[in-house]
């Protein structure tokens, strides 16, 4: 019994259950009107009732998220390599990248609607803009964190630069790349929704705006739950992929016993 309560899977679910109970009790006791905070059962009701619609609307959001995320990795990782390997590229690009990050994405999102219309493209671009910076920063660090002794050792082995890259530098950077991908994918979800806020007629972001306009708070909460679940599933997928591909990394070691 004790073990069942302590299993890693159950703990977050248990916490959610407690939050829902506290939520329900406080709504009842404090007499919070449903147009401010809907009681949990109303949200659940909407979730079931509007479930098919929400799932259908989640598809464009998911596509935009994955598109932005894929671009983040495909552009971010090679860019990080260039920055890590060339001082010149670093001095030109890095300050501009940091500058680009201080531009609020929400403020420039309407611009993409003007340029690229109401289709999926502007959402992908906003998702990319949010997702790619952590990939670049973390990957640069991953490539630069090669031990000096390891570099010397490999130099004494006389292999080509390319061999050194894919046999030593790249595997060494993989943990950093994966941890950045986990951050990136959750930010890409945010980016996709921001993109949908500024101009669209589909997606969870659109549902959120519509529900907000109709004061349909239960639907809004239900949409938020769907959105969060999407982020969690994407995060866990990358996490599982990392555990499968990098079983050697510190964070993934199942058996930490040493032999002597």
């Amino acid at each position: 019994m004790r073990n069942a309560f302590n299993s890693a899977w159950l703990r977050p679910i248990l916490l959610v259950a407690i939050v829902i109970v506290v939520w329900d009790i406080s709504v009842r006791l404090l007499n919070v009107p449903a147009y401010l905070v809907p009681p949990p059962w109303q949200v659940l009701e909407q979730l079931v009732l509007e479930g098919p619609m929400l799932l259908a609307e989640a598809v464009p959001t998911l596509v935009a998220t994955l598109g932005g995320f894929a671009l983040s990795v495909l552009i971010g990782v090679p860019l990080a390599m260039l920055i890590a390997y060339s001082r010149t590229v670093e001095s030109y690009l890095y300050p501009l990248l940091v500058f680009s990050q201080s531009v609020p994405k929400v403020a420039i999102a309407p611009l993409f609607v003007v340029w690229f219309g109401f289709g999926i493209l502007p959402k992908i671009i906003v998702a990319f803009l949010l997702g790619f910076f952590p990939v670049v920063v973390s990957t640069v660090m991953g490539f630069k964190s090669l031990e000096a002794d390891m570099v010397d050792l490999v130099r004494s082995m006389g292999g080509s630069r390319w061999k050194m890259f894919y046999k030593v530098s790249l595997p060494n950077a993989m943990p950093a790349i994966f941890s950045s991908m986990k951050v990136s994918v959750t930010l890409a979800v945010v980016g996709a929704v921001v993109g949908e806020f500024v101009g669209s007629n589909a997606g969870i972001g659109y549902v959120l705006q519509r529900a907000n306009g109709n004061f349909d708070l239960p639907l809004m909460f239900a949409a938020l739950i769907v959105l969060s679940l999407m982020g969690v599933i994407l995060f866990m997928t990358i996490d599982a992929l990392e555990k499968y591909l990098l079983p050697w990394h510190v964070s993934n070691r199942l058996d930490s016993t040493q032999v002597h």
Partner: protein
Amino acid sequence: MLAVSMKKDAARPTAQPPKIHVPLIEVRGVTKTYPGRDGPTESLRPIDLSINEGEFVSVVGPSGCGKSTLLKLVAGLAPASGGEIRIGGRRIVGPQTNVGIVFQNAVLMAWRNVSNNILLQAEMRGMDMAAARKRAQQLIEMAGLKGFEKKYPWQLSGGMQQRASICRALLHDPAVMLMDEPFGALDAMTREKMNIELQRIWLESRKTVLLITHSIPEAVFLSDRVIVMSERPGSIAATYDIDLPRSRSLNVMATPEFASYTRMIRAHFYAQGSLDDH
């Protein structure tokens, strides 16, 4: 005033056949200065040194005396500021590939198991993989790592990691082994065990070894010759031929000869400063 090298006329113990003295590594007037914010820092004063083929030479010296720098220069991993280094008669420019390097940390790749870490050497050099695998297996057995081929570095103790790193340094059968405080991170017991093993490996392979260490007993125990370096900027303060019969057991450390060697060498570190007769 100090007992200084007489290696040219020092009689070899009869326990081993006399070796032909061919200088394999020649260091001639090598200096190293690092550029710094407050002007250049002198790390090595002109160093002259020659190591014969098959000789085991240790360099001891206080921290920061530039002994690791000397090893880097011999490996061609850093350019000398002056003078020249020759290995096998050829002046070195750039990283040397006919050497095996062992650092204080095992520097094993976390994503490769023991066997594949050793084989990295072969992969980087484009060696014949079937032959390399066979040799790796032999080395693994020699180093007492049998049964741990598929283990990852973090599953091994420090001593085993360092053994794997020594195997890697031997895989391509280099002429020279360069070891930079290879046992510095190990506990005293493991260290003694590793010293015996290194001696055994050396007796079997007869590599030319340049060992950097800050342990005087380790240097005396393992070496044919011990080079004592002065404080920064480093220069050679003295050279001692160690005439103790091979193979040496740990018991040799209890002999008066051993004690007199360590005492003489240790005296340098307490007499630093007054040591300008060299």
